[in-house]
C-alpha cells in the first residue's frame, strides 16, 4: 500500500529526467533521401523523420566502424542510451526501405562540436574550424606541442547539463570526474587500484 502510494506520489511530483545533449561532429551532407520508381501507390507517403543524433550514431557505428562504447563516449551519452539511439535509427531506416517512404534527417537534442585540442605550453584549449586541414601549431603561443583533447568532460560548455559529480578513490583519495553511465563502484583507481566511490 505504502509502495503504491509512493509510486503515485513520484509520478505526480517528478518530471522525467532531462535528456543529455548529444554531440554531433558534422551536420549531415544531405537533408534526406527520396525513393524512386514506387510500385505500390497505395502505401503511406509520409516521410520518416530520422533525428540528427540517429544519423550520427549510424555514422560512427557503421561508417567509421567504432564500437558502440567508443561511439557513446564521442556523443557524450551512456552506452545503453547510444544503443537505443542506434536501434531507433535502424528501425526508422528499415521502415523507410520497406514501405518506400522518404527519409528526412532533422531535429534531435544535439549540438555540433568540432575537435578540441589542448596546448601543452600555454594550457589553452582550441578547436579546428577548418576540418579538412590539419593544425600545425597552437594558435595562441605558436607551440607545436599540442594534443587532441580526448578526455571526456575536460572542456565542456558552461551551461550544459554536465554531471558535476566526482568519483573519489577510497584508498588514496584520487579524484576524477564521474562519467555518466559508469557506476563509480565498478571503477578502479588508476593510481592504486582501489575501488572508487561518489564524492559526497
Amino acid at each position, binding site marked *: 500500500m505504502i509502495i503504491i502510494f509512493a509510486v503515485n506520489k513520484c509520478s505526480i511530483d517528478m518530471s522525467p529526467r532531462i535528456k543529455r*545533449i548529444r554531440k554531433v561532429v558534422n551536420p549531415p551532407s544531405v537533408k534526406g533521401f527520396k525513393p524512386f520508381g514506387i510500385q505500390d501507390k497505395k502505401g503511406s507517403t509520409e516521410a520518416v523523420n530520422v533525428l540528427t543524433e540517429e544519423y550520427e550514431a549510424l555514422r560512427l557505428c557503421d561508417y567509421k566502424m567504432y564500437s558502440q562504447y567508443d561511439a557513446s563516449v564521442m556523443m557524450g551519452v551512456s552506452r545503453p542510451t547510444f544503443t537505443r539511439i542506434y536501434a531507433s535509427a535502424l528501425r526508422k531506416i528499415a521502415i523507410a526501405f520497406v514501405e518506400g517512404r522518404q527519409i528526412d534527417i532533422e531535429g534531435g537534442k544535439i*549540438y*555540433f*562540436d*568540432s575537435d578540441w585540442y589542448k596546448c601543452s605550453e*600555454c*594550457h*589553452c*584549449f*582550441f*578547436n*579546428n*574550424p*577548418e576540418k579538412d586541414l590539419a593544425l600545425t601549431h597552437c*594558435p*595562441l*603561443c*605558436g607551440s607545436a606541442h599540442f594534443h587532441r583533447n580526448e578526455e571526456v568532460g575536460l*572542456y565542456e*560548455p*558552461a*551551461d*550544459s547539463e554536465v554531471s558535476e559529480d566526482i568519483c573519489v578513490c577510497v584508498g588514496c583519495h584520487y579524484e576524477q570526474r564521474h562519467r555518466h553511465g559508469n557506476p563509480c563502484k565498478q571503477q578502479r583507481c588508476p593510481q592504486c587500484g582501489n575501488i572508487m566511490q561518489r564524492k559526497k
Partner: protein
Amino acid sequence: MKVAITSTGNTLESTLDQRFGRCSFFVIYDTDNQSVAYIPNPNKEISEGAGPASVQILAENGVHKIVSGDFGLKVKPLLDSLKIQMIVVKDVQKKVSEIIQSLSH
C-alpha cells in the same frame, strides 16, 4: 588576420573576461599591423541571446579567431559554421597584453 579578445576593461592591462556573450569589451587585435581596437559590448545587460548577437558583431568586423574563457552552447555551432576559431584560456589572471604578446609569436 584579426583576433578578438574578450576583456573586462578598455586598456591593455585589463584581464581576460571569462564570459563571451556578456563580456565588457571586445579587443580586436590585427596581427598584420599590430593595431588594437576596443569595441564596447552592447549585449552586456541583455537577458537572452547575448552570445549570437556578439558573434554577429565580431563576424561583421572580420574576426578569424576569438580568445575567451568560455563559449556557450548557442555560440559554438554558430562559430563552427562561420569557421571562426575558438581559443579557450582558463587563466582568470591573464591580461590582454599577455595574450597579444603570445599571439605575435
